[in-house]
């Protein structure tokens, strides 16, 4: 069979299996016929003696965790059997995958129960704040958004320290497997590692290849390309279809995320090296001017949308592109939920108009880059009454095997480990359809080369979810004068908050 045909066939077989149209045995039989033995089905990732399995075993293996991992859990979990752990998390694909599909395996093997509370992001913060301020240890593990890392760095264990305990360490956990930019951008705060990177929503450029081809537009690789293309599309097809979309809900964190993409994309930054707000400098104002022009090509609803509405606008064919979270991409490919299945392409974010500022030219660890990342880490609470059991769970939840399963089961979300991007199970899903992983190479490249990370300081939660989006919201609602006036006013507000400390 020709290699390309084989790949296509494997893709369709995997697709049917994932959709529940084929049972596991048939899937494995078909996969086996395609020459994919245990090695390809994820059990043997190159030279990893711990995890290789024989062909016979693979045939009977269901799409569930590696048996050796399960054995380790059984061994190490014995003294802790009967403990119950609690975690509060946002409803992200990894948490959902674990909560609904995978935790049963963990619980069976280790005897440790894990209860996961799934909440919207603001409520997770509420629970975390309450827990930490009272040191009551209601939760054993924390889901920490990267913008909160500064606030909670003292309340969790550093995983590098935890790994030193040989009795509990997972074989081949390989903490270096986590993509370094993610560790720096999500989990590091002043030389402390605040847990390990757990999920990585990151801005990538997602656009309707069919519309671009139809209007013979160049691929949007630069800011100017994007603006011109968007304008052309809106002129030609508006008001049914607009060129691009936005997540510009006033007073919401999403507006701040959009702002940073354009700000950094024009060589600007939030803070200068003295820790003072500089979104009102020349480059910042250039960014605002660009944004104003771009906004004119967006659907009018953007003023009220978070990434939720933005995603829907693209999925329903109202907007032809968006620079936003890569996690949306599999959603776009799902024919039941979107009208644009198979029509979207993903590429890295548009090139900035000038050189980016480096982390030395900004403050508080801000790393300019158009690919704004909003990842979170998973960490063990210092106030937990069962820190060892929690550490066991954390290792399992962030191990390569589990992550590969999450990516396959969880609708193609971005892994935080290098090895998972190369995992054959994950690669097999790179086809059109729900749960696709065909955008992952783009995600990986964006993480490696184009990622932008917000600054880390205790006041950042307030600045990013209130001060900045409220000010920007007022500007776009026409309530606060020119962009310069707005930015200048914002500067004094932000500087004041930072100064208060």
């Amino acid at each position, binding site marked *: 069979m020709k290699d390309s045909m084989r790949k296509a066939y494997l893709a369709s077989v995997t697709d049917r299996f*994932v*959709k*529940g*149209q084929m*049972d*596991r045995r048939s899937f494995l039989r078909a996969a086996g016929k395609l020459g994919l033995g245990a090695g390809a089905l994820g059990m043997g990732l190159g030279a990893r003696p711990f995890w290789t399995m024989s062909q016979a075993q693979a045939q009977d293996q269901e*799409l569930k965790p590696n048996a050796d991992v399960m054995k380790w859990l059984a061994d190490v979990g014995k003294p802790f059997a009967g403990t119950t752990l*609690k975690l*509060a998390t*946002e*409803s*992200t*694909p990894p948490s*959902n*995958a674990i*909560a*609904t*599909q995978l935790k049963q395996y963990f619980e069976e093997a280790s005897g440790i129960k894990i*209860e*996961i*509370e*799934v*909440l*919207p*992001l603001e*409520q997770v913060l*509420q*629970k975390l704040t*309450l827990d930490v301020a*009272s040191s*009551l240890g*209601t*939760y054993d593990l924390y889901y920490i958004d990267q913008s909160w890392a500064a606030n909670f760095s003292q309340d969790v264990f550093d995983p590098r320290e935890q790994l030193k305990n040989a009795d509990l360490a997972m074989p081949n956990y390989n903490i270096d497997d986590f993509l370094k930019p993610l560790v720096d951008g999500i989990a590091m705060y002043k030389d402390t590692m605040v847990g390990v990177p757990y*999920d990585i*929503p990151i801005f990538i450029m997602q656009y309707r290849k069919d519309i671009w081809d139809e209007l013979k537009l160049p691929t949007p690789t630069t800011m100017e390309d994007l603006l011109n293309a968007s304008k052309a599309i809106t002129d030609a097809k508006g008001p049914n279809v607009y060129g691009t979309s936005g997540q510009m809900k006033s007073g919401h964190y999403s507006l701040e995320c959009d702002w940073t993409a354009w700000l950094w994309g024009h060589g600007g930054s939030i803070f200068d090296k003295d820790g003072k707000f500089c979104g009102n400098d020349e480059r910042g104002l250039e960014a605002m001017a660009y944004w104003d022009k771009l906004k004119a090509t967006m659907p009018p609803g953007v003023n009220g949308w978070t*990434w*939720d509405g933005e*995603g*829907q606008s693209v*999925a*329903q064919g*109202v907007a032809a592109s968006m620079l936003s*979270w890569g*996690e*949306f991409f599999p*959603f776009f490919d*799902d024919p*039941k*939920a*979107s*009208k644009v299945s198979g029509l979207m392409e993903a590429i890295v974010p548009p090139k900035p108009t000038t050189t980016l500022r480096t982390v030395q030219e900004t403050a508080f660890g801000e790393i300019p880059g158009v690919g704004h990342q909003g990842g979170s880490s998973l960490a063990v609470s210092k106030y937990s009454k069962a820190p060892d059991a929690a550490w066991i769970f954390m290792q399992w939840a962030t191990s390569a095997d589990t992550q590969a399963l999450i990516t396959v*089961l*969880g*609708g193609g979300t971005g892994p935080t480990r290098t090895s998972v991007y190369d995992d054959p199970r994950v690669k097999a899903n790179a086809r059109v359809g*729900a*749960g696709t992983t065909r955008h992952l190479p783009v995600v990986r490249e964006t993480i490696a080369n184009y990622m932008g990370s917000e600054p880390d300081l205790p006041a950042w939660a307030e600045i990013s979810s209130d001060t900045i989006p409220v000010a920007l919201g007022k500007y776009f609602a026409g309530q606060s004068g020119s962009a310069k006036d707005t930015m200048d006013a914002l500067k004094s507000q932000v500087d004041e908050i930072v100064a208060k400390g």
Partner: protein
Amino acid sequence: MNASVASRTLRTLAAWVVVGLFFFPIYYWTSVAFKYGNDIFSRPPNLFHFTPTFDNFQKVFGISLGRGGVTVTPGGGNFFMAPRLWDSIVVATLSTLVAIVIATLAAYALSRMNFRGRHQFVNWVLSTRMMPPVAVAVPMFFIYKGFGLLDTFTGMVLIHALMNLPLAVLLMKSFFDDIPAEIDESAIVDGASRFTIFRRIVLPMAKGGIAATAVLCFIFSWTEFLFALTLTTTGLKTVPVVSSTFVTSIGTAWGNMAALGAASIIPAFIFILLVQKHLVRGLTMGSLKQ
């Protein structure tokens, strides 16, 4: 005769239109529960012509059709929500019971016994409802944690009963006020004790009032959000809190949320229907005193 027939028909028509307008959002929401994502977001909005599906209900209530599929979609997935409905039912029913018992006893005394400071006392009871919820939730969290009430049914029943007490007392007092005190007096003359009068004479007459109060207490408990959020973690969860699970990082799973919402209207509505009979009968008794 014609004029009054005309006005009666007009009135009936108006009543149907008005109630229809109020009911429309509920119809819309229920229809969302049966739609695929594409139909939920269509322009122009799709009210009647859509492909119905049980998908959302399957995902939310785990009524799987033996597909053996392992797909997890954002916000949905095989969330087993049926126990959450049960949690809500238990908390609402028990807290209503507790609130009614305590409030009825107190309201009777407030209605019949004219003691000094009665007016101020009722004002005080009313004022306990005036604290913004967040101001009560935080200290309650600490108390509950200290007494081991966090994440327990007892804890939730208590806080909801407490929340409803001012309303229940006020309403029950007004219903008792409607029952003439002379009835009590004549029973006293016959030598009955206060409590016997209360139990055997006044209480049965106030059945309608109790039904109305119970309905409102149930509704307030059923729909309460902030306390249920703060004072529970994973042990039990009520429907309003768990509905927000569908607000995910990739967007809101509207279909699933609507499925849960539509299903949760049913128990509450059943409760209302059950007490409806007593509601009407009881409320037409007596006359409104000044």
